[in-house]
């Protein structure tokens, strides 16, 4: 059986496809039933400026899901990862109801966001075939591509620690065999075609379909044949199937803690309270935080690779900026110790320079970190409220820490050995009004964000708001505000040891909600499906 199955089935008219009874012969001889169906993969080589693409014929698909199973069998994937997925759309009123199916793998976009965001260059748009290829070897499992793809195509495989996705069965296609899904489809609804990239760039309307995100985001190459004269307004059947996303705990902690670090550093510098002890504490906190951050990766051992694509990926830039922030902070701490204990030549200059550079790099890192989340494929993140929240969280936590740090410094000051190191003004204080101001702004930002989400015309934004209002998340939402309110009360009561943890808990809770309540862009899926956290 060396030939692709469809060729065998259709090219030989004398084969079993034409099976006649004796009585039926006369009918049949007038009307040939089986005719050669063109091959489901292109017969010619690609020319320059062309690439392969999927063609999906919605009018042929019967929603049997053979393609999904064939795909998983082809790639040996676990049951809960499906590189090809089926979705259902429905419209009209009984009995004039219409329902259709979508079957999609990767759309092998002309302007692929997965590729652009990847910090390690694991993606490649194959120059010959145009297939968007992913390398499991290069991948470090940061999952940024998962966030970037408007079709939720790349999927993280926790068993491997890396992402995987449809490669149009590149290995089969290049040896003249059709992809597994194409091969499996009993209705020939999926085929591989050649598309002229330039032409498609200017007109890609045929990539759009009900239940699919706008093809214009990333220039999806998949051509979809829609039913003719369909008058019904189609909707995804899973429109109410909203599930909370992965919380990414290490990122919840990492972003919150690094914002704390930068916030405290900024406050100490601005209020001229930067002393070796305080800087050492911030240094220790930053070391801890950066170590937590790698736990987010599927492959922490290769975290260093994340620096690779700093020219293109905001994730690389974040890593780079926080790395530089850490270096500057280290220098700052060292210089400040050196000045006190044993000044070398130039340490005073270093101290002065790092005092400016470290906080600036920290703030830049926070902005880069916020920029990571400004991706069109995750609409609830892609708002101005994200960078505002990150900066305000930093300010809130910084301000909340100051009274506590001063308190500690005062206590240390009493120790004769450390008196010189701390060199603290007696009675130095930090205005709590700043803390109250920032925490009020922080809460305002969250309230405005939530109202805007709930009133949005965009489904995914509204869905995020309704997710925040579900039984499982509503409590956390209210608790995040309660923590912040209590923090204000504590700070008014001059209880810095309680105010900071409370404010931090508020930020953590809100950050958790930020991660779980985002509803990504995706193709329509089926109504009943497995719940995943």
């Amino acid at each position, binding site marked *: 059986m060396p030939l692709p*199955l469809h060729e065998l089935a259709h090219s030989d008219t004398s084969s079993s496809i034409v099976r006649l009874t004796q009585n039926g012969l006369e009918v049949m001889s007038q009307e040939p039933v089986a005719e050669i169906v063109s091959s489901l993969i292109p017969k010619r080589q690609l020319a320059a400026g062309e690439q392969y693409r999927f063609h999906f014929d919605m009018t042929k698909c019967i929603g049997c899901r053979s393609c999904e199973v064939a795909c998983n069998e082809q790639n040996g994937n676990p049951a809960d990862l499906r590189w090809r997925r089926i979705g259902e759309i429905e419209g009209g009123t009984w009995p004039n109801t219409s329902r259709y199916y979508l079957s999609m793998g990767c759309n092998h976009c002309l302007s692929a966001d997965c590729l652009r965001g990847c910090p390690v260059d694991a993606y490649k748009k194959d120059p010959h075939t145009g297939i968007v290829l992913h390398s499991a070897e290069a991948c470090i499992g940061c999952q940024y591509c998962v966030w970037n793809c408007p079709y939720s195509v790349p999927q993280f495989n926790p068993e491997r620690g890396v992402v995987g996705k449809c490669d149009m069965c590149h290995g089969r296609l290049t040896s003249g065999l059709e992809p597994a899904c194409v091969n499996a489809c009993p209705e020939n609804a999926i085929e591989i075609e050649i598309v002229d990239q330039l032409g498609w760039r200017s007109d890609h309307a045929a990539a759009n379909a009900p239940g699919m995100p706008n093809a214009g985001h990333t220039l999806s190459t998949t051509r979809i044949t829609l039913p003719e004269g369909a008058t019904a307004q189609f909707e995804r059947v899973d429109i109410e199937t909203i599930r909370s996303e992965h919380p990414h705990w290490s990122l919840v902690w990492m972003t919150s803690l690094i914002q704390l670090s930068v916030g405290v550093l900024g406050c100490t510098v601005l209020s001229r309270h930067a002393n070796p002890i305080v800087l050492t504490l911030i240094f220790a906190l930053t070391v801890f935080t950066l170590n937590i951050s790698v736990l987010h990766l599927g492959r922490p051992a290769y975290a260093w690779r994340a620096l690779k694509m700093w020219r293109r990926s905001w994730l690389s830039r974040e890593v780079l900026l926080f790395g530089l922030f850490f270096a500057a902070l280290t220098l700052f701490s060292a210089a400040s110790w050196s000045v006190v204990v044993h000044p070398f030549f130039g340490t005073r200059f270093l101290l002065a320079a790092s005092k400016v550079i470290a906080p600036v790099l920290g703030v830049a890192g926070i902005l880069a970190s916020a920029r990571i989340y400004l991706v069109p494929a995750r609409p609830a993140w892609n708002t101005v409220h994200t960078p505002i929240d990150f900066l305000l969280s930093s300010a809130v936590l910084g301000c909340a820490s100051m009274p506590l740090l001063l308190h500690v410094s005062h206590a240390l000051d009493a120790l004769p050995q450390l008196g010189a190191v701390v060199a603290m003004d007696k009675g130095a204080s930090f205005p709590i009004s700043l803390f109250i101001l920032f925490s009020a702004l922080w809460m305002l930002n969250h309230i405005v964000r939530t109202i805007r989400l709930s009133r949005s015309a965009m489904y995914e934004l509204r869905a995020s708001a309704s997710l925040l209002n579900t039984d499982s998340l509503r409590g956390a939402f209210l608790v995040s505000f309660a923590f912040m309110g209590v923090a204000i009360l504590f700070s008014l009561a001059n209880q810095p040891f309680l105010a900071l943890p409370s404010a931090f808990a508020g930020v953590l809770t809100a950050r958790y909600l930020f991660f779980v309540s985002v509803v990504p862009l995706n193709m329509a899926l089926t109504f009943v499906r497995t719940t995943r956290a």
Partner: protein
Amino acid sequence: MKTALVTRLKRFAGIDTQREKYAYAHDPVYGHISESRVAEKWTKTTCGYCSVGCGMLVGTRDNRAVAVRGNPDHPVNRGKLCPKGLSEHHILSAPGRAKEPLLRKNGVLTPVSWEEAIETMVTRIREIQQRHGNESLGVVGTGQLLTEECYTLGKLVQLGLRTRNNDGNTTLCMASAVSGYKLSFGSDGPPGSYADMETADVILLIGANIADNHPILCHRVDRSSPGTKPRTLIVVDPRVTKTAMMADVHLAVKPRSDIALLNGIAHILIREGLIDHDYIERHTTGFKEFAEFVSTFTPEHVAAVTGLTEQQVYETALLYGRARSAFIGWTMGVNHSTQGAVTVAAINNLALITGNIGRSGAAPFSITGQCNAMGTRESGFTASLPGYRKFDCAEDREDLARIWGISVDRIPSARGLAYPDIIEGAVQGKIRALWFIATNPAVSFPNYNLLKHALGNVEFLIVQDGFHPTPTSELADLVLPAAIWGEKEGTYTNSERRVSKVNRVVSPPGSARPDFDIFLDIADRLGVRDELYPGWQNSHDAFLEFQRVSAGRMCDYSHFTWKQIEESNGLQWGGESLYTDGNFATPDGRARILTVPCDPFVEQPDTEYGFILNTGRTVEHWHTRTKTAEVELLNDMVPNAWLEMNPVDASRLDLKPHDRVTVRSRRGTVVDLELRITGIIAPGQVFMPFHFSETNSNIVTLGAFDPISREPNFKQCAVRIERTAMRDRRSSGKRLKTHTSNLKERTELT
């Protein structure tokens, strides 16, 4: 220990990404593919799920099935398979397989040897039969067995265990089609073939959602591909099924109004002169009364009963009547009814009056359910004698007695109890011992509460199955672990009478054994092995004998050997069409045109139970999910049941999508279903799939049965829908836990 720790650390750090497990390789036959699916050997076989009968190749490596492929040379599926078939190799290594005989001792199912199991079974049955008579034993078989096994079982039960109370789960499925064929044509036997769908001008599907249930038949009705013959697909179904979406004309009839529609079409055909007078004259009887009878089924009346417009009825009749060849296919929408058998007769009427039978593209055609339901009909010793013989025909009985070399009075002259009557007999205490083979009535039988009572009532319950625990085997006194598809050799017959070869690709797990071997062992213990199965060693001996039994009959197996069947990718007995000469299996050779009144279904909705519940399937699952729940991928796609409700009703009841709802009938309550609000279901009706034991639709369904076929009316009963109270909900945590424990078990195995 140390290496395990190192591995875990390497996994955690991402140094180890399980490259080997996810590696690709080159399969010599199928090219680039996951290394895990590269086979050493490919074995031809036939799919063990539904009766479409797709040819497949199972790839094995190191005595494990690693992949499945459609057989491109097989005329049924031409290389294609549905999602269940494509993942069928996974069931062979599923963790839920029954691996050892289990006997209930002090209330606990305890592993025992095969000797002890068979010894206990025979002793207990004999002892019960001595006290209550031979017929106190009831046996319920299945369409899952090989034809050879089914034939062997029939002899064992009727001649060895000497009880007539032998039936199959096919009574829950195809019995109405069988009875309908017998009513009209004098014999069982679907007259057409799949090929007819390609040569017909009009295809009328009634109560057949082939896109979900027989997906590989859909390409036969494909009209969009270049070169395919232009033809019209009409789908009659109260629900906007996937199949309805393929249709040119969808007739969303009111539940159980199909007889009115069929009679109404006949009325218009007669009125418009679109009937084949010559055919009627030469090959049928009863037309005159029929014509008179259907004259009352005016378009006006039919429109009122069916909920269609007069124009729809009229146009459908014209489409059917003007077709040069018209094909009618049906499945459970027709069969699952108290009027199933006569509805089949009403379908046959249409074919007979228009002469749409016995030629290419023209047939009334039942699309069967299980992989070998047809084989059980041909070889079984249940509702009829092997080889489509009749109990009440002395000649048939003598025929068999001669072939078997036994006295003719050993062969009963009337059938015993049908499946529902066996259950009823258990409730009444007439049936004291029950033996279920490869079927799961605790999920599949209507009115679960009555069934549970019946199973609790018998003294000895034997469950022979490939899987354990199942909701039924859990209740058993004795569990016999059986080999399943892929572990034994024989034949299946598909819907179009195509006998296909089924081959063994791996050994059964643990001490599980082929049903055939189990039957022979029981016969041995009963002391009837030499008499019933002289010199038999394997299932091929059963085939050879069945060839002799079927020789000269309509279902004649004597024309082909196992080898020929395998080489030709299946062979149809009777050719592509039956009755090509217009000669039917009735005494006078004429088909019967019967008058079929249209009665409303039994349990009509009322103020207390306001909805009509419809039940059915989804493409990802097979029957009671003993198999497909074990295939992670399929179960992951559809892990739970749902209830479909029209938006109009949902807003009236103030329900929202994904709300947890309870379905209540007069018989029981199903709680915690996921609500799907959708326009594919009519107002006033709700639909739920029957696959799920956790939310078993048969807790609410009605125990009403067709008086002729004894098939249950699964499709309509009156229910009430309410929001599920918090305390009745299965926590999602609990469900997740079961899922992960499955995963764990699987990891340990691999």
